[in-house]
């Protein structure tokens, strides 16, 4: 794991990508700090972080796109399979390198509240609480980007898909308000999801029986639940959408609340996507 971590980190900082990522984040952090704190006389650094969270939509896909997709294109993935390494170690090494790249601009930003403090009273609690949440949000998005990179053959495909997924996650919380809250609408929406899941399963496994079975189980379960307790379905789908809004969890921190459930949520999502990345690599070995 350490060997992979060191190689990846060296690759990010010997090339432009690591520096570019840091510069991009810091550029926007600087612009918003100037606008809010220096020109607007706000004493809240968390507003800056709130405003620049959208930068992740571009920065994360660009940073993660080559991580695994490029290995596949250059056929260096064969080396990783042939070396006496565990795939979980490979994925963890790659992910920690990504985290280290993210940690650099975060560490620089950690200085900003201290600098602002020289010129007035800044409440450090919310500022640093939000900064930690900002890092966790980034960590979570990076794991999603890493997983997408592991399923793609080309960097461009990986970047485009990651951008689409992150955009969806960015807006999904706000979109939830516009979705019908009726029970039957939720049922239909969930059935559609089950169908999508079955199609994805079929694409991945090429097993029509397993996909049909999965669809039957999901649909059957939904219908049974609906028949037993249709009231539970009212507002269920918009609820689920709101729960998926990774960015919406972040806004609670900006409001001055250090939300521990959100921390657990971010870490769980990260763990799930790292696990999926390992599985995706493992699957390649069997069906390449």
């Amino acid at each position, binding site marked *: 794991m350490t060997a992979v971590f060191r190689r990846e980190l060296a690759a990010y900082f010997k090339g432009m990508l690591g520096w570019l990522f840091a510069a991009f984040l810091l550029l926007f952090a600087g612009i918003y700090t100037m606008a809010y704190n220096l020109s607007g006389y706000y004493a809240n650094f968390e507003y800056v972080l709130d405003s620049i969270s959208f930068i992740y939509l571009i920065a994360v896909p660009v940073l993660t796109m080559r991580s695994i997709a490029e290995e596949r294109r250059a056929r*260096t993935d064969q*080396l990783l*399979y042939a*070396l006496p390494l565990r795939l979980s170690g490979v994925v963890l090494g790659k992910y920690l390198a990504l985290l280290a790249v993210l940690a650099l601009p975060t560490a620089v930003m950690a200085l900003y509240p201290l600098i602002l403090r020289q010129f007035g009273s800044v409440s450090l609690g919310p500022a640093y609480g939000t900064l930690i949440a900002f890092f966790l949000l980034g960590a979570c998005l990076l794991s999603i980007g890493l997983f997408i990179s592991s399923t793609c053959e080309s960097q461009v495909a990986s970047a485009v898909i990651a951008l689409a997924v992150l955009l969806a996650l960015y807006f999904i919380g706000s979109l939830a308000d516009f979705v019908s809250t009726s029970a039957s609408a939720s049922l239909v929406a969930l059935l559609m999801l089950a169908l999508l899941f079955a199609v994805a399963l079929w694409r991945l496994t090429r097993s029509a029986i397993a996909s049909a079975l999965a669809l039957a189980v999901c649909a059957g379960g939904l219908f049974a639940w609906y028949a037993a307790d249709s009231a539970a379905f009212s507002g269920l789908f918009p609820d689920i959408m709101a729960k998926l809004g990774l960015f919406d969890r972040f806004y609670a921190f900006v409001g001055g609340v250090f939300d521990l459930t959100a921390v657990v949520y971010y870490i769980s999502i990260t763990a799930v996507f790292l696990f999926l990345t390992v599985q995706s690599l493992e699957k390649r*070995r069997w069906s390449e």
Partner: protein
Amino acid sequence: MIEVRHLTKRYGGHTAVNDLSFTIEPGAIYGLLGPNGAGKSTTMNIITGCLGASSGEVLLDGVNILDQSASAKRRIGYLPEQPPLYVDMTPLEYLRFVARAKGLRGEALDEQLLAAMERTGTLDVRDRLIRNLSKGYRQRVGIAQAMLGDPEVLILDEPTVGLDPAQIIEIRELIRELGQRHTIVLSSHILSEVQAVCDRILILSHGVLAASDTAENLTALFAGSGAIRLECRAEAVAVGAVLDRVEGVERFLIRPGEGGTSLVELRPRANCDPREALFNAFAEAKLPLLELHRERASLEEVFLELTRDDPGELREAEPAEARAEESEEVSEA
């Protein structure tokens, strides 16, 4: 040492490797020979644990390679068909990464690094970006990578493909040198290469093992029915009279040659080499023999015969024989 048992790999509807079984004994250089698409790379990928088989297993000293993957992989060095190089690194950085990943640390790491670079001749280019290296040097870096950690078995997939003739000779020499300390399995679709380097040859065709033997035995197998050609300065009638007296001649054909000579093509009886008798008989009759030689099936012919697209009689007959020989080996071991 490595035992491949009933290996089958299917990609969708296409069967790349079909019920393949063979054994790799320590201390020899094995050549996996076959035309493009015969399943060589697939087989090697499965042996090294890079690819899962549809069915069958690979045992390393009796242990399934997938069960003990980390310890098994430490004992196998692998150079895939396309050397897996990070082109944004220098050979030194790259090899250091591989050495670390193979669990080497400290002095042992530096020693092995230096030894691998020395033996593959990559010491001079150690600080250049791999991106800027020629194909020959890239191949060497790939071989150096496989050597690190001093594995018992080296598996090299087409190690000389795309190299110029001088580089090919260098790499072959390197492989022969490595063969003194490691068991080597290399693949190639070029027969002369396998013939030049390998002790034993496994011929793959359409994912099936068509033959497995030493180069000499493979040639001999097909040379048994080799015809004998001779040229004699005499009339056809006289030559015919002599040939009638020689034992071990099944049938012959005499054609007139240039300048009053006779050209003879004769077929000896099975398991019989009448060349000496022929020489003596012609000497007694005072008929000067200008030429006498037995035709041997070249390995090239054997190879083409075994791997041709329409499965002929010969190819049908061969796997059975090859397998029979192999099972003898196994029972000896």
